[in-house]
């Protein structure tokens, strides 16, 4: 049986990887994938806590979070497609119309 701390470490490492991806990567598709990595890290964390505490409600929260992650991915991808179709841009540092 894998100890609880391993799960927590895994999910925190995934969270940091995702956060770094959001902050430092330029491509907008990679950025959306990093947001998905963050959500999946949190899902692993909730499932691990639920398994550790022998409590069913954590698994239930996981399903809500999966739905939420799907909704966020849908919104993000539709915005990215719109951005490419209208402005022909895919890199984050190219979208700099508003400043100040």
């Amino acid at each position, binding site marked *: 049986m894998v100890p609880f701390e391993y799960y927590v470490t895994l999910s925190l490492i995934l969270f940091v990887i995702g956060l770094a991806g959001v902050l430092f990567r330029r491509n907008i598709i990679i950025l959306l994938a990093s947001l998905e990595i963050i959500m999946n890290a949190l899902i692993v964390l909730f499932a691990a806590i639920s398994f550790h505490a022998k409590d069913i409600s954590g698994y239930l929260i996981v399903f809500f979070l999966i739905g939420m992650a799907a909704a966020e991915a849908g919104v993000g991808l539709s915005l990215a497609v*719109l951005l490419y179709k209208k402005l022909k841009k895919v890199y984050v540092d190219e979208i700099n119309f508003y400043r100040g």
Partner: protein
Amino acid sequence: MFALNFKFSVIALELLFLIAGIFFFLIDKFIRNKNYAFYLTFFIIILCFGFLLFTPFGDFARAYQRDFYSATIQLFLLIGALLVVLISYAFLQEFKALNYGEFYALFLFSLIGSFIMVASQDLLTLYLGMELMSIPVYFLIASSFVYNRNSIEGSLKYFIAGAIASALIILGLALVYYSVGLLSLKEIFVQLAQGLKKRELLLALLLILAGFSIKLSLVPFHMWAPDAYQASPLPVTAFLAGIVKFALISAFIKIMMIGFSPLRIELGTFLLPISLLTILIGSLLAIKQDNIVRMLAYSSIAHVGYASLGILSGDYLGYGFIIFYMLVYLFTTIGVFGLLIYLSRLKREYLEIPSMAGVSKSLPLVSFLVLILFFSLAGVPPTAGFMAKFYIFITLLKGNLIWVAILSLLFSVIGAYPYLRVIKVIYMDSPPYEVERGEYAVSLFAPIILSVLVVILWGIYPKPAVDFIQRTLYLYMSMLLFHF
């Protein structure tokens, strides 16, 4: 096991909004005259005022509870929504490419989210309501790419900031779930009142606060706000600045009142530099803006900073004054954006401040209304904005935070400059040309006149509104603490 209570009459308003929104999405393709959506939405919101009076108090599945607090906040949100729908009708008559049923449908979905958020009994419901509130707004902002292609950029920035905020909030939720075992606010209070798990729950509260401060655009995370505000269509900006922020602040007050109330002194020490910085940076950056929507975006950052000053002392009186402040700000913002819609219908360049020179010569009534509303934003005495700031400073003085009060008073002097500059440009500069006076559409001027009247009335005699809010909070707290 306990039995869950499924009383569908409790969530009647949300069900009505949901059915109406789905109806718009289904039927909109087949109706040629798109104005039907406005009439239907208007009718539904009027109907909901009746529903709000007659729906019973109670809970739905221990997640959603209609009580004094949520019913009062939902009443304010409904009034704001009615005004925003009225001004968006006048806007959509001019910008016809946005005039679809889906505009109102997304608006109603977002309203459902804010209703769920202020009435939630556990943190998961609160988070889901928050996402339901913000996701339609991303689409509403991006929808104006027909007129301004760069609006996608503002929407994308808001989306990324909101996604990071929701990730931080879920991390806080995971910490609460690990240390308490449930996400219910009352259970958190029970644990904290016994003095257990204080450090874990403080960390969780800080994570939740970080998420909320991204959504509320408090200072380290404020950069998305001006872009999103400038990118969106004007009624959506009014919605974003007025209703969304009002709902977020009242939900945060609810968390602090029920769940984390033993930690409210510690929260105040963390929030104090954030609030002061928010006021300072919001006021300073508003000075050099030429676009008036961008200027109002920075001013909205500063106003949320003032409102968050009321949380610092951890006094329940302050929470009521925050709600009063945000209510005044809601009315003022909707009035200002209504006037901006009127001006931008006359000439598109009126959204830039230097080209507004001498508007008062040709449009005396509109300039006078701008004068009153901007005085209210700046906090000049005979208006409601002054009274709202006055009550916040009273709370600070009562909490022995005199130097904070003095500092924020100084910052408000800086913050008055951008508004006075607009008034100076309108009244004292000489006009380059004469403008034809447009027609005063009823659906646009009814909300503006209403908000101006409210601003003047509460500036002179604010006692009934403040007493109403304070009594609501008092009743809510006493029902919570003593079970009859």
